[in-house]
């Protein structure tokens, strides 16, 4: 029950080595989880939502309706628009639609002009079929949750570093947690089929432990996604210039200078077909055109990674003037490929709809694991009939402020999308502000309520906020749940139903928090979990010594 660090070294009884290891690991596990837990919970929850990043973006721009168009047609339509508007640019980036995005995105970079630096142009959304710009409400869409989950809304590079430190804490907490809970391997291999209730119990235990490999995987691969920032030293050990490594690992980037001689840009369709022949029929996802309409023009096609277990896209570069293939990225060695696969495992782009839902639920178990760990910390240290010490109250309040208030903040972000007028300037930033003001504001307001009431009320508010989403959607757009079901719009219908399911989950949690009989005042936090200190006094004492 100490918050002050007392190392197990000061524990009086000398223990055999195996037990000492488990003791020190339990001690460090609690501290790692306590220090990083709140940020990790937010990272898990927003990261889990990010498995539906394109779908959230689609929902947040209800004016747009996805239309499926072959890559060749979308590419040529986008180039047609760019040729008509900014033919003399230095570089065009074209992000082709897939079955999850439904719009083409283009970004054009003007030639550098030392006298008058060109203003940075916004990214445009184009109709995949016609190449005409699409008008939709300004929003950061699913990108906001995605960015927050590893940048934490903190200026670069500090948000990424903080996320990295928390991920390292998570990794160490997983390793120490596995050592602490020695039964984990027994649980893992215990699944007795066709034994009625017994099997259900075993399946329940096994699934709880089964999520562990996912948590370990997602933590390690998360570190790998930013490894070049976190751990660049092995590159520096072998290469004087980082670019040499990039070229050796992924092939030389196309960066020929403009020749100054004009030459018409050839159609990209034959290039896409030529690439598809080398990629087992895969189409490109991204097209980068350098120096369009110049004799030195290059067209680089990056292979779509959906459906492939390596998230590092292959690329092929063609000459834009002659159509000749200039270069192709090398096939990666085992280590580069391993890193690409780890990246893919984290991002989950390769997953089809069913596997994506598995990812989503696994991610939720991650948030649940962190959340229950934080609640457990409080429950274990609370003594009946004793005034809670300062650290205990602090942790409990932070638990409420993060676990119960963040979901409402996320719902507020989505609600703001429907309630802020579609043409209001700066509305995208207002949506983001709505999330953080709601989240932190609610956390502050909850301080005036007793802890138990605060749990019930904030969770109940989350349920109301999520349940309001389908209603507000139906009132403010013509794409409400009933209309979506009638039109066979799977995405919008599934989104509304998912919001109702989340609302039900929050409501259930609020109900659980309120169901606890007396003396509830300071015991509500653990919502349905048996009170560990009461039922297991010996263990509680051991843990009190350990921490």
């Amino acid at each position, binding site marked *: 029950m100490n918050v002050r660090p007392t190392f197990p070294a000061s524990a009086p009884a000398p223990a055999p080595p195996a037990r000492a290891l488990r003791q*020190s690991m339990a001690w*460090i596990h609690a501290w790692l989880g306590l220090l990083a837990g709140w940020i990790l919970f937010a990272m898990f929850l927003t990261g889990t939502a990010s498995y539906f990043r394109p779908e959230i973006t689609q929902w947040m721009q209800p004016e747009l309706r996805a239309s499926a168009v072959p890559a060749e047609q979308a590419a040529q339509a986008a180039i047609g628009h760019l040729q008509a508007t900014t033919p003399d640019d230095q570089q065009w980036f074209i992000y082709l639609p897939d079955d999850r995005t439904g719009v083409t995105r283009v970004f054009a970079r003007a030639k550098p002009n030392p006298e008058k630096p060109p203003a940075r142009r916004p990214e445009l959304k184009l109709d995949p079929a016609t190449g005409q710009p699409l008008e939709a409400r300004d929003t950061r869409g699913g990108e906001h949750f995605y960015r927050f989950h590893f940048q934490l809304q903190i200026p670069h590079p500090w948000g990424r570093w903080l996320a990295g430190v928390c991920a390292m804490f998570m990794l160490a907490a997983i390793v120490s947690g596995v050592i602490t809970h020695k039964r984990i391997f027994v649980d893992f291999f215990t699944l007795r089929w066709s034994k009625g209730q017994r099997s259900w119990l075993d399946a329940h235990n096994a699934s709880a432990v089964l999520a562990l490999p996912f948590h370990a995987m997602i933590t390690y691969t998360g570190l790998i996604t930013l490894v070049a920032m976190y751990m660049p030293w092995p590159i520096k*050990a072998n290469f004087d210039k980082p670019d040499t490594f990039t070229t050796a690992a992924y092939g030389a980037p196309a960066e020929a200078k403009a020749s100054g001689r004009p030459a018409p840009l050839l159609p990209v369709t034959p290039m896409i077909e030529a690439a598809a022949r080398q990629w087992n029929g895969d189409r490109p996802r991204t097209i980068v055109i350098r120096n369009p309409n110049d004799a030195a023009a290059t067209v680089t096609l990056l292979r779509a990674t959906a459906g492939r277990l390596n998230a590092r896209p292959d690329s092929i570069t063609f000459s834009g003037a002659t159509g000749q293939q200039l270069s192709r990225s090398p096939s990666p060695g085992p280590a580069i490929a391993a890193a690409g696969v780890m990246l893919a495992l984290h991002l989950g782009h390769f997953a089809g709809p069913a596997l994506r839902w598995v990812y989503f639920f696994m991610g939720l178990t991650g948030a649940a694991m962190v959340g229950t760990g934080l609640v457990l910390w409080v429950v274990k240290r609370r003594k009946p009939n004793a005034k809670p010490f300062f650290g205990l109250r602090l942790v409990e309040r932070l638990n409420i402020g993060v676990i119960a208030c963040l979901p409402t903040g996320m719902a507020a972000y989505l609600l703001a999308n429907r309630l802020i007028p579609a043409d209001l300037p700066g509305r995208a930033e207002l949506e983001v502000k709505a999330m953080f003001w709601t989240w932190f504001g609610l956390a502050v307001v909850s301080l005036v309520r007793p802890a138990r009431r605060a749990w019930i009320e904030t969770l109940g508010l989350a349920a109301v906020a999520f349940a309001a989403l389908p209603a507000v959607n139906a009132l403010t757009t013509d794409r409400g749940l009933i209309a979506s079901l009638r039109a066979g719009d799977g995405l919008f219908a599934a989104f509304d139903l998912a919001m109702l399911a989340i609302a039900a989950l929050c409501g259930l949690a609020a109900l659980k928090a309120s169901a606890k009989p007396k003396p509830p005042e300071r015991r509500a936090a653990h919502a349905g979990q048996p009170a560990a200190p009461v039922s297991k006094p010996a263990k509680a004492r051991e843990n009190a010594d350990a921490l």
Partner: protein
Amino acid sequence: MNNDRSAKQAAAWPGVARMTARAVTALFGGYAAAAALASLLARLLPIAPAEASAWGMILSFLVFAGLALWAFHERRLALVAAAIWGSALVAGAAVVLMGARA
């Protein structure tokens, strides 16, 4: 705060200082040692430099986690500090002295 704690707390400062040293060694020393050891591995592996660097980067976090946990498990702080900061210095110096391959 609890009543029996104040006496202990007065004597606890050396303990707090030692714990701070241990935590700093685990977090920063552990990172330095993991970076140096991963770099040494990348420099010495007799395979293509880019591949060797990638293996070093992939394995570095495992080394970091292991070292950091061990820093809290081993009771002798002097041993922890010597092993972690020492390996960071030795492996780091070796990498710097050998220089880049490409």
